[in-house]
């Protein structure tokens, strides 16, 4: 061990010693508040280092005289007088009178003893040793016959410590020696001496010790060394014959372990050193350490044993000293269910968390001449047999099991006077203290909806606080099972208590509604069970799950369950019984449902629902008047929940069912506007059957009911006995709808035809003819209808070919059922056929076509303004030309070149000779582009007031040509 650690360890232990409160494992009791005023966690020792015992002046019996008895008592007491302990136990004299049932009796309130035997006389007589010659005192105190010789192994010596001082000391004790247990055999007197020796140890405050426990258990064959180091204060004797002292080697010699405990409790120090005594710390070292969980929390109730390796030898094969972790820690901090304990023993220990995993061995002898030795510290669980009267240290209840795997830690080369610290955390111990969201007293959380959940009580004083809502007239059961690391129920982990309050109750009070008085009261291992009565009104309850001792550790896992039947449907059956459905929480396979105590046949079970077939009215021992309790029982745990007066049997027939409505025809993909609806009546045919389960089934073509989105639904009738659901077919065909009333089996059917709807999508845009290479932008529209009605809001997916650009890829139809977008191009190659397609319902599409016309196919014609002949003072009308393809489709975007010349009006040419050419008065050239109708409009070039001829030529494409003339006369 590093020097620093040693120093820290030393300081720690010195602090403990300085406080005069800390002692190693071994003391029987420790102080704790509020009874004791001493520092909590201190060993309770006799108030004086020289306690004197006073013996009964009578004979022990006819065979054993007073003197012989005194000698035997002195021998038993002398065992505890050892040099390394400051305690000196001696006889102080005799009592004033022989104690018998004549002077020891119960007066109805008080057990009356002679005055000098009473606890109030402790200053003068700390220990009274009574020779119960005829066993009458024991019979008076323990019952008639308790002193019988056949009971001497238990009642040969009766000890009672009946005086404690709040300062933390033992003031007074009684030892009653049963005279009927000693006959003529010397072995019997030796047996009593042996029992008395151990009883002296007990009244001096020495606890039982678990060391070399295989000597007791026989788990492995004990060696001679193990037998030799089996402590005098072993909890339970081995009975090898009539005399248990013969079953132990050197029965009247304290072992190192006994001496260590004695040195703890009654140390010889420099301050009290007297002749014949040696310092307890002489030639010894002190050892302490922590047993912890991986979380750092101390692990209490772990037995720690020490083996030595004396210098230059092999490690010992036997255990030398034991201690128990957490002995000084508070044994019972109380809990919100049962409150804080009141007795001195139950409240022993300190709440200081650092003590929870602490073990201390105050006096470990240094053996051999070298002055040093090595230590092997091993952890082990406390033997479960050691509880109650045989408890190790203060663990009077069944000891908590160790978490993880016991371990052995080696610590080398410790020397005389050292204060060594050896921590020995078990391997693989529970490693989390995360309790999750398990509520607070002022803010409880709802339980899992299934009624099954797992929780963790960690750390100390932690409690879980769930909340539940319960309807009136329902009993219920709460179960919580402590489990071990493997998830198996265990009584060696948390000792669970359950408490129930109304949610409205103030916090800080003990349970107002129900509580378990003690843990582990269930019928399966580790389970605590609380059965709750029904209430007349709906209630919200607050629940506490807590450890009885107020402890919380990483291995305090529990599984909880709320067995609660919330709803029954239907609430009335025909006399023939029928199907019922129970909803609730905490159900499981194997649960039994009874109607008026008569089992129902289970059909299916989940955590929240049980479907069963109720017996007939006759089988259920019911009549048409009155209601039966419906109960869910768990045959294994004994838990149950009942809905009181839940089910009645009505009339003599089964419930009737009639069709209210059903659609004749439905369209696939659309919820029917007319629901499938039925009416359920009781057998009288007029009273609506409320809460009745009805199964809807759609068969034939594929279809689902809106109520459950499945083709089969189990629904419950409303207060009018009505049940209904819309229907949606997913494929065309013929459907058969069936409604079956589950309790009695009555049914009704309807036939429905499912058809696909008539859907249309129409391209509203006419084919578009574009001049090759002409840029253009144009709207594209489709119209959508279903069953001849426009469909608004329907998405249209648009696509285009040959490089056309679309303003959107998806548009919605407007209220008129029309969807529109804009298409454009920068020019298509002549001869191209492009399309714009809009699709509705994914597969239904309409296409608009665009044709790009090669220039060789452009044809130009005059469609207006030709043949004009007007006076010179008038104005010519515009000329309209149109460009088309060869089949007459107007071309958009075609360029048209226009040439105009104005010639003077020449008049009539002479009949002979050359006709002179008319002079050209004006000319022009322009290029126009055809509009979406393929047209261009030309304004004639004219000279106002001048008679003239206007010649116009138009050219488009490679083939398109047109000429015409207009005349203006004088």
């Amino acid at each position, binding site marked *: 061990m590093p020097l620093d650690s040693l120093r820290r360890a030393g300081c720690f232990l010195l602090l403990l010693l300085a406080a005069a409160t800390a002692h190693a494992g071994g003391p029987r009791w420790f102080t704790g508040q509020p009874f004791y005023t001493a520092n909590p966690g201190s060993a309770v020792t006799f108030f004086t280092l020289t306690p004197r015992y006073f013996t009964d002046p009578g004979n022990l019996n006819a065979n054993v005289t007073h003197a012989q008895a005194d000698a035997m008592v002195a021998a038993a007491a002398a065992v505890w007088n050892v040099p390394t302990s400051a305690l000196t136990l001696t006889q102080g004299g005799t009592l004033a009178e022989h104690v018998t049932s004549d002077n020891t009796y119960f007066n109805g309130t008080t057990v009356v003893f002679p005055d000098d035997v009473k606890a109030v006389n402790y200053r003068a007589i700390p220990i009274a040793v009574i020779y119960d010659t005829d066993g009458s005192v024991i*019979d008076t105190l323990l019952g008639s016959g308790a002193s019988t010789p056949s009971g001497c192994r238990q009642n040969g010596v009766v000890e009672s410590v009946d005086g404690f001082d709040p300062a933390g000391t033992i003031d007074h004790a009684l030892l009653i020696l049963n*005279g009927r247990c000693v006959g003529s055999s010397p072995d019997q007197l030796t047996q009593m001496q042996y029992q008395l020796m151990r009883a002296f140890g007990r009244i001096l405050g020495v606890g039982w010790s678990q060391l070399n426990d295989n000597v007791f258990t026989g*788990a492995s064959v004990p060696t001679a060394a193990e037998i030799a180091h089996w402590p005098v204060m072993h909890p339970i004797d081995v009975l090898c014959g009539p005399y248990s002292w013969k079953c132990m080697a050197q029965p009247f010699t304290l072992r190192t372990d006994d001496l260590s405990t004695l040195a703890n409790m009654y140390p010889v120090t420099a301050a009290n050193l007297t002749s014949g005594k040696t310092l307890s710390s002489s030639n010894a070292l002190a050892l302490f350490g922590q047993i912890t969980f991986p979380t750092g929390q101390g692990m209490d109730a772990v037995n720690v044993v020490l083996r030595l390796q004396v210098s230059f030898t092999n490690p010992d094969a036997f255990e030398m000293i034991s201690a128990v972790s957490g002995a000084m820690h508070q044994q019972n901090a109380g809990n919100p269910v049962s409150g804080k304990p009141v007795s001195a*023993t139950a409240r022993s220990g300190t709440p200081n968390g650092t003590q929870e995993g602490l073990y201390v061995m105050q006096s470990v002898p240094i053996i051999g001449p070298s002055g040093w030795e090595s230590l092997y510290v091993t952890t082990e669980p406390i033997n479960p047999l050691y509880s109650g009267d045989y408890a190790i240290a203060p663990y009077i209840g069944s000891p908590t099991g160790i978490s993880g795997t016991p371990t052995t830690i080696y610590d080398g080369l410790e020397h005389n006077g050292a204060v060594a610290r050896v921590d020995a955390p078990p391997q693989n111990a529970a490693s989390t203290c995360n309790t999750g969201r398990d509520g607070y007293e002022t803010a409880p959380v709802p339980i899992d909806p*299934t009624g099954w959940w797992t929780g963790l009580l960690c750390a100390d004083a932690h409690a879980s606080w769930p909340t539940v809502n319960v309807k009136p007239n329902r009993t219920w059961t709460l179960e919580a099972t402590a489990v071990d690391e493997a998830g198996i129920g265990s009584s060696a982990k948390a000792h669970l208590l359950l408490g129930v309050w109304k949610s409205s109750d103030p916090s800080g009070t003990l349970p107002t509604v129900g509580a378990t008085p003690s843990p582990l009261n269930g019928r399966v291992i580790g389970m605590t069970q609380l059965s709750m009565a029904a209430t007349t009104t709906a209630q919200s309850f607050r629940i506490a799950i807590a450890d009885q001792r107020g402890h919380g550790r990483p291995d305090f896992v529990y599984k909880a369950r709320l067995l609660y039947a919330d709803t029954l449907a239907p609430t009335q059956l025909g006399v023939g019984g029928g199907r019922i459905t129970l909803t609730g929480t905490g159900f499981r396979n*194997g649960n039994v449902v009874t109607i008026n105590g008569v089992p129902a046949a289970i059909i299916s079970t989940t955590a929240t629902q049980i479907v069963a077939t109720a017996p007939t009215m006759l089988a259920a021992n019911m009549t048409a008047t009155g209601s039966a309790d419906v109960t869910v029982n768990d045959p294994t745990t004994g838990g149950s929940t009942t809905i009181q007066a839940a089910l009645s049997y009505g009339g003599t027939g089964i419930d009737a069912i009639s069709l209210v409505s059903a659609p004749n025809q439905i369209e696939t993909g659309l919820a029917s506007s007319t629901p499938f609806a039925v009416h359920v009546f009781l057998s009288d045919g007029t009273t609506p059957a409320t809460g009745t389960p009805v199964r809807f089934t759609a068969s034939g073509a594929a279809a689902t009911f809106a109520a459950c989105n499945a083709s089969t639904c189990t629904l419950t009738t409303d207060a009018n006995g009505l049940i209904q659901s819309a229907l949606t077919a997913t494929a065309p065909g013929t459907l058969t709808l069936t409604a079956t009333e589950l309790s009695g089996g009555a049914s009704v059917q309807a036939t429905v035809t499912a058809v696909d709807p008539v859907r249309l999508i129409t391209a509203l845009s006419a084919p578009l003819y574009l001049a090759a290479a002409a840029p253009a932008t144009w709207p594209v529209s489709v119209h959508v209808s279903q069953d001849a009605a426009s469909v608004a809001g329907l998405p249209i997916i648009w696509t285009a070919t040959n490089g056309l650009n679309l303003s959107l890829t998806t548009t919605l139809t407007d209220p008129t059922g029309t969807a529109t977008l804009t298409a454009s191009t920068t020019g298509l190659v002549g001869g191209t056929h492009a399309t714009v397609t809009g699709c509705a319902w994914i597969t239904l599409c309409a296409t608009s076509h665009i044709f790009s016309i090669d220039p060789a196919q452009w044809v130009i014609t005059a469609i207006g303004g030709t043949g004009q002949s007007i006076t010179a003072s008038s104005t010519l009308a515009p000329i309209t030309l149109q460009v088309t393809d060869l089949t007459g489709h107007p071309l958009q975007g075609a360029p048209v070149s226009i040439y105009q010349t104005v010639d003077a009006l020449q008049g009539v040419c002479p009949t002979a000779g050359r006709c002179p050419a008319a002079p050209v008065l004006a000319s022009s050239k322009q290029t126009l582009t055809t509009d979406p109708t393929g047209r261009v409009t030309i304004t004639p070039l004219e000279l106002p007031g001048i008679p003239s001829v206007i010649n116009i030529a138009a050219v488009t494409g490679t083939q398109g040509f047109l000429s015409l003339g207009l005349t203006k006369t004088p």
Partner: protein
Amino acid sequence: MRQLRHVIALITLLLAATATAQAPDTTLPAAILNLASRAAVVFAGEVTAIRPTGDVVAIDFRVDQVLKGAATATFTLREWAGLWTGGQPRYAPGERAILFLNAPGKNGISSPVDGMDGVLPLTPTIAGPTGPSDNMTTAAPIAANVDRLAVRLQRQQGEPIRGLDTSFSIAQIAAVIHPAFAPIIPTPVRNPIGRPLPIFAPQQNPQTLSPSIPAPQQNTVILVAPPTDLVDPLADDDPAEIPKTTTRQRPADASR
């Protein structure tokens, strides 16, 4: 007065002369019988209340089944408070056990035979269901934990303890206590009028009865003549008083 002293001395002498150390029991049934033989009353019950009063502690029980002696539906044990050293609890409300009790001494104080060894806890013997899918249907038996008696059996030092982790049903305890009249069916102490006939098992030798022996078959039992009162018909050890037994098929509903 002197004569009285002489009488007492004589009695004491006789008592001392008869004090002989007894060998430990060698089997669990023998240990149970040992306890029972010294008990005035044996019953299975549950602690309902603990009431410290003066120098006694009154422990109230709900009696579920009487195995020896006479007890009513409720029973109060009054113990000397000196046994509750430092207030150390010996019982807890809700605790279930089979109790072997000494007869009350003067003024009504009593205690279990052999201290707390005379209190056999009735504890679960199986782990419970683990969740909603667990289809366990077995009725979990509650049985007497006899570990404290197992450690009292005679054995050599280092010899393994025999009989640990075994348990005895109440019926088996009853069979051990009164082998000639072993009642299989719990005989409720409540509603004594008109209760079903008690049903008893065949006679068995307690020395040969072992916890490993399965419980008597449920479908074939031996019935005795109906008792005339509620007092345990087995309390009287005189074999001459044992009613003659007859055999018949057990009724179908005899399990309750």
